[in-house]
């Protein structure tokens, strides 16, 4: 297991190098520059030149990248152009907010996905199974943006049960209960598509195992339905793990629109604003964090996979 993890961690290094290099080059090629975005129209040309020099914009791209990388490995991601503060200081609170909304959405994905998938697999021809299937199909195919707006319009504007956005009520004292109320709609909006996908994958996997010789064998031995289900669920678990891991990574990336629409001050929103302001150090730092998280999740999923399935361990 240790060898497995070491190998995966070592393989992550070139992946990260590749991602950061590609993003660095792409961001540098985007038209527009941080100086024009940061300074008003009346700033003097001399001041523009001086700031551009200070930001190192005149140096060749590979030199800038090497300089950035040299500092990044020591934990220094540079200074944000618009906030004029260390990038890490700007990223950290945003990352925390993203983790909160991602975790909530992921909890919904797993709970809802397992529930709908299991019902679909156990009662494939009954009304409950059909309903579960219809719900997961609807969930996958619903246009996320429109559904998010619909959720706001119904639950925040018409019924006023839940807040329309933000993390806390500006008129109230705040607190955890307030945060949780604000979390519901963004978490549901973000969870929708991954939930449907997870349900469909789990349903297929579980249905396959339930129809296999394993299930028949268990039933022939006279084991109870619950035990049969437990064993079958174990065998369907690798599929759930794979899709769950993928969906978690997808959620991390996909929260940009949720954060924008619900004014959730997370990483996606920060990256969106930073890109508009051509705040390259923040974009680069944010992408690095997302890439590390993405690769980290994949390693964790693979490790969990290896734990559940001895065949994966032995082949690795």
């Amino acid at each position, binding site marked *: 297991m240790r060898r497995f993890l070491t190998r995966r961690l070592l393989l992550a290094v070139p992946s990260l190098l590749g991602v950061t290099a590609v993003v660095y080059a792409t961001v540098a090629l985007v038209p527009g520059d941080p100086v*024009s975005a940061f300074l008003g129209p009346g700033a003097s040309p001399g001041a523009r030149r001086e700031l551009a020099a200070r930001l190192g914009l005149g140096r060749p791209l590979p030199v800038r990248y090497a300089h950035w990388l040299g500092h990044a490995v020591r934990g220094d991601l540079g200074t944000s152009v618009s906030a004029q503060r260390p990038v890490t200081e700007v990223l950290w609170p945003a990352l925390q907010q993203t983790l909160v909304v991602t975790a909530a959405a992921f909890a919904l994905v797993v709970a*809802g996905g397992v529930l709908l998938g299991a019902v679909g697999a156990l009662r494939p021809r009954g009304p409950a199974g059909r309903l579960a299937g219809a719900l997961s199909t609807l969930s996958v195919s619903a246009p996320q943006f429109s559904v998010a707006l619909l959720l706001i319009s119904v639950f925040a504007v018409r019924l006023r049960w839940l807040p329309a956005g933000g993390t806390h009520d500006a008129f109230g004292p705040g607190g955890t*209960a307030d945060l949780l109320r604000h979390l519901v709609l963004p978490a549901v909006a973000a969870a929708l598509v991954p939930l449907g996908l997870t349900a469909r994958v789990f349903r297929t996997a579980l249905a396959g195992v339930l129809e296999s010789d394993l299930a028949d064998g268990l039933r022939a031995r006279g084991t109870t339905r619950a035990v049969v289900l437990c*064993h079958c669920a174990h065998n369907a678990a690798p599929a759930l793990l794979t899709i769950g891991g993928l969906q978690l990574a997808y959620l991390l990336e996909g929260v940009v629109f949720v954060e924008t629409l619900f004014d959730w001050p997370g990483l996606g929103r920060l990256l969106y604003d930073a890109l508009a302001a051509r705040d390259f150090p923040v974009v680069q730092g944010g992408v690095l964090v997302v890439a590390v998280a993405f690769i980290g999740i994949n390693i964790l999923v693979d490790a969990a996979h290896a734990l559940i399935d001895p065949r994966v361990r032995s082949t690795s």
Partner: protein
Amino acid sequence: MPIRHRLFRSTALTSAALLMTAVAGCGSHAGTGRAGGGTSGHGGTLVIGATGKLPNPDTMMGGDGFEGKRLVAFQLYEGLTRYDLSKTDGPSRVTGALATSWTVAPDHRTWTFTLRKGVTFQDGTAFDTAAVIFNLDRYLNPKSPYYTTALGAAASEYAGDIAAYRAAGSGRVTLVTKAANGHFPEDLAHVLIASPTALRKSGTARFATHPVGTGPFAFVSQTTGQRIELAANKRYWRGAPKLDRLVIEAIPDAAARTAALRSGRVNWIEYPNPDDIDSLKSAGAQIVTNSYDHLWYWILDTAKGPWRDVRVRRAANYAIDRKAVAESLLHGTADPAYQAAPRATFAYDPKGDTYTHDPAKARQLLAEAGYPNGFSTSVTVPTGGSGNLLPVPITEALQRDLADVGIKVTIRTTDWSTLIGDEAKGTVALGSDAIAQSTTLFQSEALLPLFVGSGSPFWTGHYANKNVDRLLAAAAASPVLATRQDDYRRALAQVTADAPWLFVVNDRNPRALAPDVHGLVQPQSWFLDLTTVRVGK
């Protein structure tokens, strides 16, 4: 074991989700029937939904557009002067803030300001001559420990004309400009003064996390770029603001802003989508508008193709139906612009209104110029951006009008940062023959030559007119308002006649307020005085 473990885990997750929903349900009534509700204090809490990212709150660092200056910087800080935003019936004029009066020497360069006595910063320290010198050092003197390249570059926009500054005794400071500068007092409204004590404590690097000025509202907390909370400065020299708290939240999506107001999350939104105005009104919201020095226009490349001919440029101006854009498309949140000078500026003369909707005249001018069958051209349009209203739908309306007289326009869209980034380098994004954009032409007078002067470092469609340059220079050098007004009127009348732009509309700065927000005086300015606003019955 692993199975039980996993089952336990999924049960726990399901319970957590159910619990979350239950908590949400329990607290749900707290949000009902409270659009703009006040808190314990008498003035209440105002929560504003802003259209874009909030600025860096360190004085002039800004960096995120004029809306940030309006809602954050001008609430936290003041300069030696300020805009008088208490009137609704005329363009806002400059008045004293941290200075009570000023005189200018006959060279029109040496200005002496008498500072206001008894003003304190929000941290309780006194404002004095040393504070002014400290701040100017911070903006202009690279040897100051509080100077940074970024701050110096940002401050150069309004403080860049200051050549020398010194204390002049008995509460006065003398500032010398590089050249004769008649609008210097207005420039100084943007040169913001921060507390030297607070700056010494935090240093420039951390000042944005603890900003302190003399403005009507004091800093409480922020989520960088997204949300900022301020509290009334009870010691404010013009009298404490009526509000207790002021919260600004960035809500860039227009639909989300409308939802935020209708759900009671905020009690004020900036720039509601014009299409939402009727529904907001019927939901009880107050819609407030007033003209300011805004112009939405196309800059035509006067050195390229048919646009080189002034008759063609005038033809295009006669071809478009601005009234339809202002009234039907923008639902009255803008006024048609029949000339270069925006209507809410002292350079506006109603007699200068020139370009009515006259397609027949447009066709005649095109025929005279040798284009009886029209021609094809292109325009680059931003998809959004501060003050740009609905850039693509407006351009599409203009495209239809121009097609009626034979001018076939290809629309190319790009993002706002790309457009202004290229413009600052003197080029056009996507290489079109024109760009669509908006600007506040007189915010401040110092910026006007950037838009119509021949020496502008920006892309101005290669427009150059020596008469305009001469009038702008004469206006800028005169400290006499009447002289400047006369020169600016003549300069902009010349621009109207030369038609280097397609003059389209002047925005009316719409905002929607919850029914219990009172006391807003909407001036003819981009900026706002929030000291008169209160929330409650």
